[in-house]
């Protein structure tokens, strides 16, 4: 029996709504797929947060066979040291064969790598897929800014991997699925945290979040200034879309860095991605390439973006966006 642990953390803010964080559902989907391919396996979700018992059933419905729950006030702010100490204790208790975590700031950037080091085991980060072979799991992940892909293997007592955002589609909730929910006993109070959180400022961002957006309008260097971006804001309003920028656009301050799409920013995968005045550099496409449909508007017909886009227009964006916006308005109001 292969025992797979999937790390699922739920913040206070997210816990107040009904929706579970997408990253958590994605890691469950990856775990389910792995368990089914390995056969004779059990997917156990580790559910951590300040007050998370209420979500356990939902994790079963989304693919877990069992849920290990731990609620503790110290797990509220997702301090990495506390999460790491907690996970280390859980792994000692349950000795899993595989540990999966979302490749988010907390899990992929901090907790999972440090946990791997403490366990003396290899880890492959930011995976988009895997192949199960008789002697190993080969983890697939992008390298070189998405210009190439690599199969990697890790050796050690436990198989560890972090799962790239948007690589696995969450499973639809199946209320007929049943499974055990077990409450964990971990001495969270005694975990030492050399790094402490002294301040956290988080504001409701203006506009539609890139994680939720079904449509994203993204501008590049060719937008020329903030006024150019205000034209995209108008279009986004018509379409109910999120606004994003490429790295040059973010470095120029036309969009905040939190709305940068690419290797150095966010990975998005909306239904429709409208790339305006973006050349399609690999480092940008590393963040947008998984979008279902890509529309490109660029004046340079040789721009690499046209090799990756499904629908394209070769022209200055100034000639296109106003009439496109107007036509969208008419279509959407009729």
């Amino acid at each position, binding site marked *: 029996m292969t025992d797979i642990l999937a790390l699922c953390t739920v913040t206070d803010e997210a816990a107040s709504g009904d929706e579970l964080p997408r990253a958590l559902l994605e890691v469950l989907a990856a775990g389910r797929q792995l368990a089914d391919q390995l056969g004779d396996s059990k997917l156990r979700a580790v559910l951590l947060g300040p007050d998370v018992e209420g979500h356990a059933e939902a994790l079963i419905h989304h693919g877990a066979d069992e849920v290990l729950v731990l609620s503790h006030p110290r797990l509220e702010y997702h301090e990495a040291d506390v999460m790491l100490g907690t996970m280390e204790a859980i792994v000692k208790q349950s000795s899993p064969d595989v540990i999966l975590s979302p490749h988010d700031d907390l899990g992929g950037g901090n907790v999972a790598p440090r946990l791997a080091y403490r366990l003396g085991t290899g880890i492959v980060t930011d995976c988009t897929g895997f192949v199960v072979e008789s002697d190993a799991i080969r983890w697939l992940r992008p390298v070189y800014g998405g210009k190439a892909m690599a199969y990697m293997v890790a050796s050690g007592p436990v198989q560890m991997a972090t799962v790239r955002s948007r690589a696995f589609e969450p499973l639809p909730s199946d209320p007929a699925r049943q499974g055990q929910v077990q409450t964990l006993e971990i001495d969270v109070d005694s975990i030492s945290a050399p790094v402490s959180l002294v*301040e956290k400022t988080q504001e409701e961002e203006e506009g539609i979040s890139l994680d939720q957006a079904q449509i994203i309008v993204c501008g590049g260097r060719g937008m020329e200034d903030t006024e150019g971006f205000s034209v995209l804001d108008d279009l986004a309003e018509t379409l109910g879309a999120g606004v994003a920028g490429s790295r040059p656009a973010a470095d120029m301050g036309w969009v905040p860095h939190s709305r940068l799409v690419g290797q150095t920013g966010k990975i998005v995968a909306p239904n429709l991605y409208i790339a305006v005045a973006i050349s399609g550099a*690999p480092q940008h496409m590393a963040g947008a390439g998984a979008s279902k449909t890509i529309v490109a508007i660029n004046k340079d017909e040789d721009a690499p973006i046209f090799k990756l886009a499904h*629908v394209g227009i070769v022209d200055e964006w100034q000639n296109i966006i106003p009439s496109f916006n107007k036509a969208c308005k008419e279509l959407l109001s009729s």
Partner: protein
Amino acid sequence: MHIVVCIKQIIDPEIPPHVFQIDPVEKKQIRGRQVLVISLFDEVALEVAVQMKEKAGSTVTALTIGESEAVEALHNALALGADEAILISDPAFENLDSFGTARILEAALRKVGEFDAVLCGRQAGDVEMGLVGPFLSEKMGLPCVTLAANMAPADGTMRLRRPIEGGYEVLETSTPFLATIMNDDSNVPRYVSVRGLRKAMRTEVPVWSAADLGIDPAAVGPEAAQIKLEELFVPEREIRCEFIEGDTGAEKGKQLALRLRELKLI
């Protein structure tokens, strides 16, 4: 305050896809005529260190593991504002995994001696695993702050600011500590002047070998690696772009809207 920045030299990642080539046997990118650069997040980490130097009078040391040409990355680091640079180089240090890299960096940091902060980029711009920083912190038992964008001393401790969705966190740690650095508005790397670079090229860069660091090559080489790249390939893309034509931009804009409606995308 002494800040050590660990940097990696990579083939310029900002190249168009059609000149990107790999060697599937060696499982590496082929350099061709591409220039070598400091990996982006490492350059950002250098910028953060140099900003601290300007604010608080710190000393900055840049470290890299590489072949002899990696000295160019160190010259760049010196021109950006680092005070000292050290090249860690040994024929045995080929195809290291993140465990091996962390082990070598640990030995180098012990040889450096006193330091208050170790900065690493959040991930290398080529393999992008993001493991060396966290591994090194664990190996050395240092407090670990990840994905920070800048830092400031506060009453004998260090406060680091870390961008999060819609805001930021401030994290506090004692020194010495290790931080991985990500980019934001505050740390866009400065340009290196030609004069600065010329001056930097005259700076002596010491080279430390496996023997200098007391490292058994067998313990860090490919044989010892726990994370292995088994297969490298360039994925085939089969997208054919459908171009919207029209006599004027206005016509094309309208046609685009109609086509997207047809595809049920808007």
